[in-house]
C-alpha cells in the first residue's frame, strides 16, 4: 500500500488557520476531536434515556402480571429501548465517538479525509435520535427492534417514524464508514505501514467497510417498509403476495454485520488498554489484527442463524450453523491473546484496566452462549426466549459498554486534560460488575425453562428470578449514575493529566492533551511498532510537539 509520499505543501504540511467564533469552533466544528466529543455526549444522553426505558422494563417485570405500565406501552418501551441502544448509543459511541476522537491521532493525521462529511454525519445523528424518541408521541413501534412484518405493518405511525429515523442514522453511518476507510487507506503517517498501525486502528479498519456496505442493505429494507406502510406497496404483506420472511433476510443481512460493527471497535479499545497497563506488548499483534478482518468478512455470511425457526428450508440452515461456529475460532484467538497479554506483565489496577479485564471475562461468557445459540437443535429450543436476551446483553453490555467505559477512563485525559477520579471509578466498576451479572445470568436459565421474549406478563413460576434480576438492574443503573457523576465532577476539578498520564506508547499520547486543533506541528515518521516498552519510541519528528512553539500555519493554506 503506497504510503502518502510527503511533498512540499501536501496534506501533511497543510495547516488551515484556527477556526474563529463559538459556532464554528464548538457547534459546527470540522475538527475530528470536537466531533468525537459531540458524538460521545449525544450518545450518552441517549444512553440515559434508553437506560430509563430499561429500568421501566425491569420494573414492569417485577411481578408476573406486570401492572407498572399497560401492555402496549410496555411493547413501545422495549422496542424503543432496543432500537435506541443499538443505533443511537453503541454504534455512534464506538464508531463516531471513539473512532473520530482517537484513530486519526493514532495514525498521525491532522484530520479525517472529509471533515465536512464528518460534521454532516454527526449532525444527522441527534436529529435521527430525536425522531426516534418522538415516535412515543404518535404511538411508538411495538414489534421490538427487529420490527418483523406483518406486525410492523399494523403498527401505529411511530413505526414509520422509526423506519425514517433508522434510515437517517444509517446514512450517517455510511458517511462515517466512507470517511474512515479513505482516512486509514490514504492518510497514515509516512512509514506507518499496515503492520505498524495500532490495534484500535485495525478495529476501525475492520469496521468501516461494514459500516459502509451493510448499512445500505438495511436502508433498502427500511425504505421498502416505509413505502409499504405509507403507500400500500406490497413488499412484505402476505395477503398481497409479499413475503414477511424477505424482511427477515434483508434485516439480518445488515444486523449481523451490525453486531460486528458494535464489537470490533470494542476489541480495538481492549487491545490498546490491556498492553498499556500490563506494561508489555500485546500478545500476537498480527493474529489479533487479521482475526478482526476475518470476523468482519465472515460477518456477512452468517445472517440466517437468526432465522433457524422462521420457516427457512431445513438444508439451507446447515451452512449458517457451521460458519457461525467457525467465527468462534478467531474470536477465541483474540480472547486467548488478551489473556496471554497479562502474563508476565506489571499490571496497574487503574479503572480502565479493571473494565478491560472485566470485558474479557464477560464477553467470553457471551461468546460461549453465542455458540450455544448457533447449534440448530438447541436454537430450536431457545430461539425467541430470554436465553437470547441474556446472550445479547452479555455481548453488548458486558462487551461493548464495558469497552466504552474502559475507553472513557483511558482517553478522558486526552479529551479534557484531566483524569477521571479513580475511587469513583472503582465504585463504578465493582457495582456495575455485580449488578450486571445479577441481572443477566438468570435470564439464560429463564430462557431454557420457557420464558418467551418481549412479554409484558409471564408465567408466575418465573417470578422469583425476574425479581432477582430487577433488583440487580437497579444496582447496575446506580453504578452508571456514579460514572456520570464522575465525568461531570472531573471536567472541572479532576487531577491534571499532562500529555501522557498512563505512559502509553501510541502516537496520540506523544502530543499535548487536549491536543491542538492541528494535532501535530510536523507529521512524524514512524519506523516500528510502538508496543515494546524496552525499546525507545519508534517515531521521528515529534521533538517540537510538547514545546509551545507556534505551528507553521498558512503553509499551502488554500
Amino acid at each position, binding site marked *: 500500500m503506497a504510503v502518502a509520499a510527503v511533498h512540499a505543501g*501536501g496534506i501533511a504540511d497543510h495547516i488551515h488557520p484556527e477556526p474563529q467564533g463559538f459556532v464554528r469552533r464548538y457547534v459546527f466544528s470540522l475538527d475530528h476531536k470536537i466531533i468525537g466529543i459531540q458524538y460521545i455526549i449525544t450518545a450518552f444522553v441517549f444512553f440515559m434515556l434508553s437506560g430509563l426505558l430499561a429500568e421501566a422494563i425491569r420494573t414492569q417485570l417485577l411481578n408476573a402480571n406486570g401492572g407498572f405500565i399497560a401492555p402496549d406501552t410496555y411493547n413501545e418501551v422495549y422496542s424503543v429501548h432496543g432500537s435506541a441502544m443499538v443505533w443511537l448509543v453503541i454504534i455512534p459511541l464506538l464508531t463516531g465517538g471513539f473512532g473520530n476522537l482517537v484513530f486519526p491521532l493514532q495514525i498521525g493525521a491532522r484530520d479525517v479525509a472529509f471533515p465536512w462529511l464528518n460534521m454532516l454525519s454527526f449532525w444527522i445523528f441527534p436529529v435521527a435520535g430525536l425522531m426516534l424518541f418522538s415516535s412515543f408521541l404518535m404511538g411508538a413501534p411495538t414489534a421490538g427492534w427487529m420490527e418483523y412484518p406483518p406486525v410492523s405493518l399494523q403498527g401505529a405511525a411511530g413505526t414509520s417514524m422509526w423506519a425514517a429515523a433508522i434510515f437517517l442514522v444509517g446514512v450517517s453511518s455510511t458517511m462515517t464508514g*466512507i470517511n474512515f476507510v*479513505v482516512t486509514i487507506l490514504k492518510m497514515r503517517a509516512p512509514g506507518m505501514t499496515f503492520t505498524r498501525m495500532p490495534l484500535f486502528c485495525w478495529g476501525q479498519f475492520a469496521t468501516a467497510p461494514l459500516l459502509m*456496505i451493510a448499512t*445500505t442493505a438495511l436502508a433498502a429494507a427500511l425504505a421498502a417498509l416505509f413505502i409499504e406502510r405509507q403507500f400500500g406497496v*406490497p*413488499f412484505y404483506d402476505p395477503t398481497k*403476495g409479499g413475503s414477511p420472511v424477505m424482511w427477515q*433476510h434483508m434485516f439480518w443481512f445488515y444486523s449481523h454485520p451490525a453486531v460486528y460493527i458494535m464489537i470490533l471497535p470494542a476489541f480495538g479499545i481492549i487491545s490498546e488498554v490491556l498492553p498499556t497497563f500490563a506494561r508489555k506488548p500485546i500478545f500476537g499483534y498480527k493474529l489479533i489484527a487479521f482475526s478482526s478482518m476475518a470476523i468482519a468478512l465472515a460477518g456477512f455470511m452468517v445472517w440466517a442463524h437468526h432465522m433457524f425457526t422462521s420457516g427457512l428450508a431445513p438444508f439451507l440452515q446447515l451452512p449458517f450453523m457451521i460458519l457461525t461456529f467457525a467465527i468462534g475460532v478467531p474470536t477465541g484467538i483474540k480472547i486467548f491473546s488478551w489473556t496471554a497479554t497479562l502474563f508476565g506483565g506489571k499490571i496497574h489496577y487503574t479503572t480502565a484496566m479493571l473494565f478491560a479485564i472485566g470485558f474479557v471475562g464477560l464477553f467470553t461468557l457471551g461468546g460461549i452462549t453465542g455458540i450455544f445459540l448457533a447449534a440448530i437443535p438447541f436454537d430450536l429450543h431457545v430461539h425467541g426466549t430470554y436465553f437470547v436476551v441474556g446472550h445479547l446483553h452479555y455481548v453488548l453490555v458486558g462487551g461493548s459498554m464495558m469497552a466504552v467505559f474502559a475507553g472513557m477512563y483511558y482517553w478522558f485525559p486526552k479529551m479534557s486534560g484531566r483524569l477521571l477520579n479513580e475511587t469513583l471509578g472503582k465504585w463504578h466498576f465493582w457495582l456495575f460488575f455485580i449488578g450486571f451479572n445479577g441481572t443477566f445470568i438468570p435470564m439464560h436459565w429463564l430462557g431454557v425453562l420457557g420464558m418467551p421474549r418481549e412479554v409484558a406478563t409471564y408465567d408466575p413460576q418465573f417470578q422469583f428470578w425476574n425479581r432477582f434480576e430487577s433488583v440487580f438492574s437497579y444496582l447496575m443503573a446506580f453504578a452508571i449514575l456514579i460514572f456520570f457523576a464522575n465525568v461531570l465532577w472531573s471536567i472541572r476539578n479532576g487531577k491534571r493529566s499532562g500529555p501522557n498520564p498512563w505512559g502509553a506508547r501510541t502516537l496520540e499520547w506523544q502530543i499535548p492533551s487536549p491536543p491542538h486543533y492541528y494535532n501535530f506541528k510536523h507529521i512524524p515518521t514512524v519506523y516500528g511498532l510502538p508496543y515494546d516498552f524496552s525499546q525507545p519510541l519508534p517515531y521521528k519528528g515529534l521533538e517540537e510537539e510538547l514545546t509551545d512553539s507556534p505551528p507553521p500555519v498558512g503553509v499551502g493554506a488554500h
Partner: protein
Amino acid sequence: MAVASLAHDAHGDADQLYIETRELRLQGFLLFLVSDCVLFSSFIFAYLYLRNSGQGWPPPGIHRLDVAFAAWNSVVLFGSGATMHYALENYKHGHWMRYMWFLLATIVLGAGFLGGQAYEYTHLIYGEHVTWSGSGIFGASFFTLTGMHGLHVFFGVCYLSVLVLQSAAGVYTRGKYFGITAGTLYWHFVDVIWVVLFSIFYLI
C-alpha cells in the same frame, strides 16, 4: 479505465495539496458509488426473492413489458454514457468547445431517457392499470426499482446541467476539474445499474 490514471493526469495549475486531496475525494466518491450499488442490489434481491416465491412471472392479469420500447430507451441512455466519456476526454485534451457540446448532448440524451421512462410509466399506469400499489409484487418491485433508478438519472441530469453552468463560468481550470470526473463516474455508474435493471426486468 484505471482509476489511478484519472487522478494522475496532467497537473496543470493544481498544487500539491489539490492533487493529494483529489485522490482522497476520488476514493471517497468511488466508495459512495459502492454503497449506492449495495442499495440497488438489496432491492434487486427483494425483487428476485419475490419473483420466485410467488406464482409465475408476470403475475396473472399483467402482460409482459414492452421490451422493444425499453430497448430503444436503453440505447439512448448508453449513448449518453458514450457522449459523457467523450466530453471528459475532450476536456482533458483542452478542446473546450467540443467538451461543452458533448456535455449538452449527454444532458439531452439523459432527459430523453427520462422522457421515455415517463412515457412507459403513463402507458403502464393509465393504459394497462398496472399501478405501484395496486398490482401486487410486480408493481411494487418494478416501479420501486426503475423509479429509484429514474431518480438517480434525474439527479445526474441536474448535476450535469450545473456542471455546464459552472464550466461556462470558468470554475474548472486545466488542472482542477474533479467535478467533471465525478460527474462522469456517476453517469457511468447509473448506466451500469440500468444494464442490470434492464436485463432483470425486460430480458429474463
